[in-house]
């Protein structure tokens, strides 16, 4: 049987992240992939409503406090430099890197931004 440890650094070492939930898929426009590319600007109204501008679209969403928070687990496989303190080689482990207690949900239809409004003659 396999035992895979999911270890946590404790409150001092755990960051708090936010989850953003979008409908659809994300694709890179160019074959160079997503890394380094911008997604968009995230604003909040004074009432606390998230507003996301992605390309030609505006999305309005809401902040949801999660009843069941998430942990972000990052996998560490053996063969990496670190051996554990006992000098033995550790098997696959997951490290809890962050906790997520809030998510920003966008589920309404995006509104297009019209940049070229024909002038009235």
């Amino acid at each position, binding site marked *: *049987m*396999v*035992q*895979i*440890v*999911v*270890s*946590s*650094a*404790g*409150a001092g070492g*755990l*960051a708090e*992240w*936010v*989850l*953003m*939930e*979008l*409908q*659809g898929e*994300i694709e*890179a426009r160019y074959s160079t*992939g*997503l*890394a*380094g*590319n*911008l*997604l*968009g*600007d*995230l*604003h*909040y*109204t*004074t009432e*606390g409503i*998230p*507003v996301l*501008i992605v390309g030609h679209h*505006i999305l309005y969403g809401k*902040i949801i406090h999660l009843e*069941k*928070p*998430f*942990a*972000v*687990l*990052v*996998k560490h496989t053996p063969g990496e430099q670190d051996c554990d303190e006992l000098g033995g080689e550790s098997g696959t482990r*997951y490290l*809890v*890197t*962050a*906790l*997520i207690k*809030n998510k920003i949900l966008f589920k309404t239809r995006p509104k297009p*931004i019209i*940049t070229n409004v024909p002038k009235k003659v």
Partner: protein
Amino acid sequence: MKRTRDEVDATLQIAKLNTAELLPTVHCLGFGPGASAAAGDFCLLQLEPALCQQLEAGCSLVIRGDKDEQAVLCSKDKTYDLKIADTSNMLLFLPGCKTPDQLKMEETHCNIIHTEIFGFSNNYWELRRCRPKLKKLKKLLMENTYEGPDSQREKDSNHSQYTTEDLLDQIQASEEEIMAQLQVLNACEIGGYWRILEFDYEMKLLNHVTQLVDSESWSFSKVPLNTCLQELGPLEPEEMIEHCLNCYGKKYTDEGEVYFELSADKICRATAQMLLQNAVKFNLAEFQEVWQQSVPEGMVTRLDQLKGLALVDRHSRPEIIFLLKVDELPEDTQERFNSLFSLREKWTEEDIAPYIQDLCGEKQTIGSLLTKYSRSSMQNGVKVYNSRRPIS
């Protein structure tokens, strides 16, 4: 190339958004270097609040399972089924992103937060509390039962033995659940290994104790440890005598002396097992007589002491009783019901309850289990339960 405030404002203008209605801070979201990383290098684990607190306290969790088993996740004291839940939406992880409430609480408002998306996923790990898979524990420990220090087995070092660590390596359960079950099994840690006593040996120890209680005319509720060790020490190892007292009694101190309050229920139950294991079935009336005579004087036998150990058949003539141990039945819920219904077609709730009690999940009751896995009908004015489908 990071976006500037001017660029952000220009976009807002094109989008015809009124900056007066927005908080001053904008998060410019971009994809970090690891964002396209292979799936499986990171994942989301959904937590119940208690688990989240444990992680915040620095506790670890462990995933346990064989290749052919459904994986479980264990905290210090609970076991959860681990399943992957798919979502049709995209979940992006935003480090350093602040919520409006957090921003409002800040004294100084920065203008731009450049947020690097760590990664994204369209599934997450879901946990559901489940029963620990403890049947394997007894199976492993029965490979090499303890028959006493002089037994041939102990001299032969070839047999399988398990330490606590070995058990954690083999059983899909949390450490506390394993420890609790070891106690239920009357297991004993001998030389660092967990051992189950061979039943006859366990009875031998018990008989030494009850005979001593009788000859000393002690009360069952005040059995002195030291005298037991003194008198019985020459016959059996002191640790085994004390282990027996712990299994069949409750320890307490009175005026600096250690005593045990023996449990009549446990002793009567063990005595019944000793009698019943020697035959397939017994005439109920005869059994009850022999049983009462076999228990220490002063203890009263009652059939309800045998729940989960023996079953009475009141429809046969004469009425009979036979050994049926719940821990020898299948662990899987459907298989358990199948085997119970193969044994007997119709059960009353009273009869079946001890044999399905351990199947109840966190919020399940016997009633809800019966509703799900059986069909009820009335027989002679009594509600009985039978299988939902034909049992071969």
